[in-house]
């Protein structure tokens, strides 16, 4: 909602002062120039100008509800004109009614009537145009504000995405492990640093839109798992089985990693026992199957809050393939959690790569 000019205290004050000064000025003019008594001068000035003020206020409020487009500004002038007629006739009849016995005044009034009309019209017209200008400027600054807040939101989203991509918690913990390795086992530290660098490079290269080959994606996943293995060497076992015929198949670049991350999060971070995470990649009837298996603590699942957080992946799959069933999760006996991701293979995607 735009603010109205008359609701701004400063404008209120100025307009009231201006109106009072104008009323006094008119009365003084009538008294000194035309030589009417103070009573007549003031009554005339107050009634005429009061009606004018009412008309100005109503036109200002009306424009608050409806702002004419460029070619319609003429209508506003017509409305001003109509309002002018209404108020000057109202003023005329009330004044002539009050001062029926003053012949002098009546003559003067009839003589000055067209001038009064002209002045009223100019006042109203000016008031209308000033209001239109005001509302236009208001609208513009509001639009600017909206634009600015949209930009801020977009920036924030971008920042959040980056932060998420970089996984600061993972990154700093890994750095800490590397740091420890430099003292305990410098050779291993070197290997880990290069792995971390490759992983980060991969992270920065990731793009939601891009499809990558299974080979490429699994290399990336392997780096991630290798780094986690250095951090939790004693208790993380990894079994990756990729069947030969899948290496050249493709999948969207940002789907598998969050699933593996989940497996690590619920399988590894939530327990202090040794665990095995198993990844199987197979192909069947032109559908690429990625199966991730991790153990979990059933007691922790109830308190995990957001659960396994796979909704975002499901949504992406739906947007990509219009199919709700490409991501499936199941819980096997002895507390194994299995996530299966199915990627239908289209010929064109494979050939473009």
């Amino acid at each position, binding site marked *: 909602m735009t603010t109205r000019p008359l609701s701004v205290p400063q404008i209120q004050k100025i307009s009231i002062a201006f109106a009072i000064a104008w009323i006094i000025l008119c009365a003084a003019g009538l008294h000194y120039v035309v030589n009417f008594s103070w009573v007549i001068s003031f009554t005339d000035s107050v009634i005429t100008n009061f009606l004018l003020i009412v008309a100005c206020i109503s036109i200002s409020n009306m424009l608050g509800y409806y702002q004419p487009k460029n070619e319609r500004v003429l209508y506003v002038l017509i409305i001003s004109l109509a309002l002018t007629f209404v108020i000057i006739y109202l003023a005329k009849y009330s004044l002539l009614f009050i001062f029926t016995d003053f012949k002098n005044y009546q003559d003067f009034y009839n003589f000055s009537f067209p001038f009064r009309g002209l002045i009223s019209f100019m006042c109203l017209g000016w008031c209308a145009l000033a209001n239109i200008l005001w509302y236009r400027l208001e609208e513009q600054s509001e639009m600017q504000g909206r634009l600015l807040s949209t930009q801020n939101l977009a920036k924030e989203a971008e920042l959040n995405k980056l932060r998420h991509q970089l996984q*600061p*918690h993972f*990154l*700093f*913990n890994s*750095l*800490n*492990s*590397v*740091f*420890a*390795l430099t*003292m*305990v086992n410098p050779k291993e530290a070197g290997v880990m640093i290069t792995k971390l660098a490759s992983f980060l490079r991969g992270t920065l290269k990731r793009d939601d839109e891009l499809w990558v080959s299974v080979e490429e994606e699994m290399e990336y996943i392997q780096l991630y798992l290798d780094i986690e293995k*250095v*951090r*939790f*060497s*004693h208790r993380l076992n990894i079994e990756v089985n990729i069947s030969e015929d899948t290496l050249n198949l493709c999948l969207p670049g940002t789907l598998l990693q969050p699933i593996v991350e989940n497996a690590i999060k619920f399988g*590894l*971070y*939530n*327990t*202090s026992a040794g665990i095995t995470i198993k990844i199987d990649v197979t192909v069947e009837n032109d559908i690429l199957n990625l199966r991730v298996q991790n153990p979990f*603590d059933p*007691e*922790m699942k*109830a*308190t995990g*809050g957001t659960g396994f957080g796979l909704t975002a992946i499901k949504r992406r799959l739906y947007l990509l393939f219009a199919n709700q069933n490409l991501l499936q999760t199941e819980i096997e006996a002895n507390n194994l959690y299995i996530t299966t991701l199915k990627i239908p293979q289209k010929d064109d995607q494979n050939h473009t790569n």
Partner: protein
Amino acid sequence: MIRTILIDDEPLARDIVKYYLSEHKEIEIIAECCDGFEGLKAITQHKPDLIFLDIQMPKISGFEMLELVEDKPAVIFTTAFDEFAIKAFEVNAVDYLLKPIDKSRFDLAMQKLPLRLNQKESTDAVLDAVAMSSAQSNRVVVKKDGIIKIIPVADINYLEADDDYVKLSTTEGAFYKNKTMAFFEQTLDAGQFIRIHRSYIINLAQVTKIELKEKDSYVVLLKSDIWLPVSKTGYAKLKTALGL
């Protein structure tokens, strides 16, 4: 000698602290633990003077573990990245080390140690500040008969003031937590938990009926077949929460 326990789920992270500590002859490492459960056991058993505590660990966080420790030792937190925790540390002047841990920063923490050994209040302030964060408020960690229990807040039927403790009534029985009613009133989701009385906070999902007992005095019946008194202000809160 300052008897010290290291609690961190990553062996290399413990190694680096051990390595730094090897220069500080006054420190004696009496145990190393790789999660909060083990940590709690070791603290109860050894009553250390100092612990190095990681925050993100399996099962329960370092904060949740610390809440269960009755006689808190001096704590130096070690963490990689936890925006909220770091803010809580900064405000409450507890010593914390960011991973990867810098040697000179570590030595500085050790220099300040004699001061820290005698004042535990700021640790409590950190725990309270952290518990206020939404990340922690969907579960409550309690200890009963030496067993640690993680209660999702949705499983709490009602809370009752009981001297210095708050009794949490769940379907699996009652648990006690050394906190105040005001603390729970602030940390629990106000849309789900309503303080109906000076001594009671109830889970809205548990309400089956509200009855007028006598003039201006109401009682509420919970699904677990328990009647609880409702104060005048409590009744007003209950009414708004239920949209009456």
